[in-house]
């Protein structure tokens, strides 16, 4: 273990460490940031949900967007897997189907950053398991 | 000097910074009653736990009452010492103490001399509103001291004396809460502890929780037995204090009345321990000179400094705490025991009485002397050299009991041959006295010259540790003096570490020496009394026609008729002793 010899050392260490517990901070502050749930059931995983989740996390990081990406169970849209649910602060959740990397990038670029709607929204007639 | 102005009971007063409210009040004649607090001025002894809460006073601006003993004055302070609130609190506190105190004052050894009793009287307590369970403890009787802790009020004075002043460490506060009390380890009896029986705990105990073993009954029985010849010896410090018990000013010398009273009590012979003190000087002085001569002759084995050995508490102290130094003190017995030994041999022969029929009583300022005469090595076939040791207080009690009007007694002399003494024997009663007496003799014997100046003021005083160098005709002799065992410990530690430069050291267990002994009339925390007793001792010395032990004609006669010479085989047998390692024993 290296000694912390200056304020800068401490700062560096802190920044490195903050990423590791950011997840907890964001969880605590979820209402005010972007929340994305990736349906991670058997069919979802089979259609590449895991890769999409990692891709989303990386992309959001790149764009410095504070977001919570979590996995959730089957949303019931097996025909449209992988599906993700995006909740912007103060808005209702919107579910996107058939999300591949290209569409994921589009969702981030258009919906999350610029708040424009993107094709492929699934009808919001389901209930999230939270409710 | 930094002065602080304050108001006590509407009177302005200006005192030094660091003065307590209690002291400040007493400076303008306001007496705030206190109980646990005790200060012996100039002796560096202070007990200030702030525990009894009797001295609480009202200080303007403070939420609670403040203990006057521990509250230092501050600028502009306004104190009310006797407001109704303070009086009410004080009375309640004393009632609480009494609610946990036996009410057997009628037969308490301390009745009439008890600080708690006086306080309850002063506060006019006629009823205790808060009765309840009382704490009870097993009574502990040792050869010298009785502990009746039911009467303990947790002032902690004894603990302070035993630890801080004497560094003995026999006592400590134990348990907590309602069961807290002061006790030896494991609540064992004192005789299983490192207690030296110096009796300083007894000397400061405000109640009857700590008292001496009462031997008056045994003495009365002996005196009333026609088959016994009962003789008495009285220690030097007794004559400087006994008067206090009969209303004399502290420092009044009552030597003549003392002898008269003892005679009226029925003792067959009234002798003086001072005689034995002179004898001690010859033995101990000779031993010192022998050691010195050997040392100067290049003997590296010789033990120096030589330590005095007349104080039994001190002897027990080093036996427990410094057993490895046990061949350093002089082997001479204490004057009490030399007296007993000579009385039951030389004198018994002289008057033709069997030692079994001779009862030797000693009047001592000390409680450890009771223990000393019970030591096995000081008896012959189970018959002790000294049968009973009474304290000054016990003697006063006997005198009263016998309806002797002490103050109107004529002055009488001691009997001969064991009643003759010199000024040197007298000063044994105070710190520094033994060594001064020894020097008066040693100088003349060593140098062969007559000593011109007898008053060695450099050896006198109340400093706990004193040192002086005496010129033995060109040879500087370094003297150390300690009174109080805590001070003694410092000198012993130096010896242990090989740092001691002294040739001879005098050690007395009690602060002030024997005048401050545990068997003396209670000083109730007034150190002035000790100083006055000390002055009285030196007065007695100055008035004596002979002031050097070796000039005591009866001592000379004793050697001629009986002992031969100092340190002779016979003298060794009768007047010297050995010491034991008590550090590991079951004590």
């Amino acid at each position, binding site marked *: 273990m290296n000694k912390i010899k200056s304020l800068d050392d401490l700062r560096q260490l802190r920044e490195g460490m903050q990423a590791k517990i950011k997840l907890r901070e964001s969880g605590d502050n979820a209402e005010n940031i972007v929340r994305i749930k990736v349906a991670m059931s058997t069919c979802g995983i089979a259609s590449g949900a895991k890769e999409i989740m990692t891709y989303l996390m990386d992309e959001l990081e790149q764009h410095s967007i504070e977001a919570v990406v979590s996995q959730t169970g089957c949303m019931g849209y097996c025909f449209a897997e992988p599906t993700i649910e995006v909740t912007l602060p103060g808005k209702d959740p919107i579910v996107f189907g058939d999300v591949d990397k290209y569409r994921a990038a589009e969702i981030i670029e258009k919906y999350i950053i610029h708040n424009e709607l993107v094709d492929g929204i699934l009808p919001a007639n389901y209930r999230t398991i939270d409710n | 000097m930094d002065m602080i102005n304050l108001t006590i009971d509407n009177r302005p007063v200006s005192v030094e910074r660091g003065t307590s409210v209690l002291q400040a009040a007493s400076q303008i004649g306001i007496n705030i009653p206190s109980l646990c607090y005790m200060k012996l001025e100039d002796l560096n002894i202070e007990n200030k736990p702030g525990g009894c809460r009797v001295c609480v006073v009202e200080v303007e601006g403070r939420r609670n009452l403040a203990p006057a003993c521990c509250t230092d004055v501050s600028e502009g302070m306004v104190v009310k010492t006797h407001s109704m609130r303070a009086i009410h609190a004080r009375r309640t506190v004393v009632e609480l103490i009494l609610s946990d105190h036996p009410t057997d004052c009628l037969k308490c050894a301390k009745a009439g001399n008890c600080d708690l009793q006086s306080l309850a009287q002063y506060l006019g307590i006629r009823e205790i509103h808060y009765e309840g369970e009382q704490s009870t403890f097993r009574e502990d009787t040792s050869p010298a001291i009785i502990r009746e802790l039911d009467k303990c009020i947790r002032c902690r004075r004894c603990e302070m004396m035993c*630890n801080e002043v004497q560094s*003995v*460490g*026999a*006592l*400590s*506060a*134990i*348990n*907590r809460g309602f069961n807290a009390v002061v*006790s*030896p*380890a*494991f609540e*064992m009896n004192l005789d299983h*502890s*490192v207690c030296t029986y110096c009796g300083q705990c007894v000397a400061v105990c405000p109640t009857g929780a700590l008292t001496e073993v009462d031997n008056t009954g045994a003495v009365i029985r002996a005196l009333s037995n026609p088959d016994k010849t009962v003789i008495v010896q009285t220690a030097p410090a007794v004559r400087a204090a006994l008067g206090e018990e009969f209303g004399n000013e502290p420092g009044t010398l009552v030597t003549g009345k003392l002898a008269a009273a003892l005679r009226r009590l029925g003792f067959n012979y009234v002798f003086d321990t001072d005689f034995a003190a002179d004898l001690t000087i010859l033995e101990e002085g000779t031993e010192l000179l022998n050691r010195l001569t050997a040392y100067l002759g290049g003997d590296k084995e010789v033990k120096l400094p030589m330590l005095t050995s007349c104080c039994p508490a001190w002897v027990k102290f080093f036996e427990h705490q410094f057993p490895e130094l046990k061949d350093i003190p002089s082997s001479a017995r204490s004057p009490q025991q030399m007296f007993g030994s000579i009385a039951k041999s030389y004198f018994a022969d002289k008057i033709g009485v069997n030692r079994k029929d001779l009862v030797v009583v000693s009047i001592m300022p000390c409680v450890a002397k009771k223990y000393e005469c019970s030591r096995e090595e000081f008896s012959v076939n189970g018959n002790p050299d000294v049968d009973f040791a009474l304290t000054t207080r016990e003697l006063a009690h006997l005198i009263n009991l016998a309806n002797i009007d002490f103050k109107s007694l004529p002055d009488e002399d001691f009997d001969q041959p064991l009643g003759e003494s010199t000024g040197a024997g007298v000063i044994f009663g105070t710190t520094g006295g033994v060594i001064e007496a020894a020097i008066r003799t040693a100088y003349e014997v060593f140098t062969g010259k007559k000593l011109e100046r007898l008053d060695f003021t450099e050896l006198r005083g109340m400093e706990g540790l004193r040192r002086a160098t005496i010129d033995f005709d060109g040879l500087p002799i370094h003297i150390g003096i300690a009174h109080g065992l805590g001070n003694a410990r410092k000198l012993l530690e130096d010896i242990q570490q090989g740092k001691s430069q002294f040739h001879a050291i005098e050690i007395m267990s009690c602060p002030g020496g024997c005048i401050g002994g545990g068997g003396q009339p209670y000083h109730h925390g007034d150190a002035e009394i000790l100083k006055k007793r000390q002055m009285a001792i030196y007065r007695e010395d100055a008035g004596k026609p002979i002031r050097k032990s070796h000039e005591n004609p009866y001592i000379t006669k004793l050697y001629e008729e009986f002992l031969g010479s100092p340190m002779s085989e016979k003298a060794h047998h009768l007047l010297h002793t050995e010491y034991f390692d008590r550090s590991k024993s079951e004590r």
Partner: protein
Amino acid sequence: MPKIKLSQRTIEIVKEICSTFENNEGELINVLHEAQHKLGYLPAEVQELIANELNMSVAKVYGVVTFYSFFNMIPQGEFPISVCMGTACYVRGAEQILHEIKRQLNIEVGQSTPDGKFSLNCLRCVGACGLAPVVMVGEKVYGRVAPQQIRKIIAEYQEGCVRPERHEM
């Protein structure tokens, strides 16, 4: 008080503890903690030895031992039972629990069962007020204890349990 003779090993242990604290009188409480931890309790002979090692009076050591309720001078049961007497436990019925344990074991607080298996003590809050009333057996905490459970808890320890590791005097 019955005398016990300390084994050479015990003497060494105590001396070693004292020397880790540099035989410093001021470390007395730490020394006592360590000694009790290793020996289970602090008999008079151990206190004498400690006093000797730290160069202080036995009376003082005893004074400290009897001041703090954490220190024991008698051996504890193989399974010391402690009942929390904190306020939260008290208002949730700790007294009844204590009473039931006393009844079951037929001992008073501060005593051990004749077979040396259990000893009973009360302690101040253990800080598990959410679980009040709380009983501890050794280090194990039992929460939300009802008087009816006591028999079962004691039975757990009645037989077949491993004796906690402790040095014999």
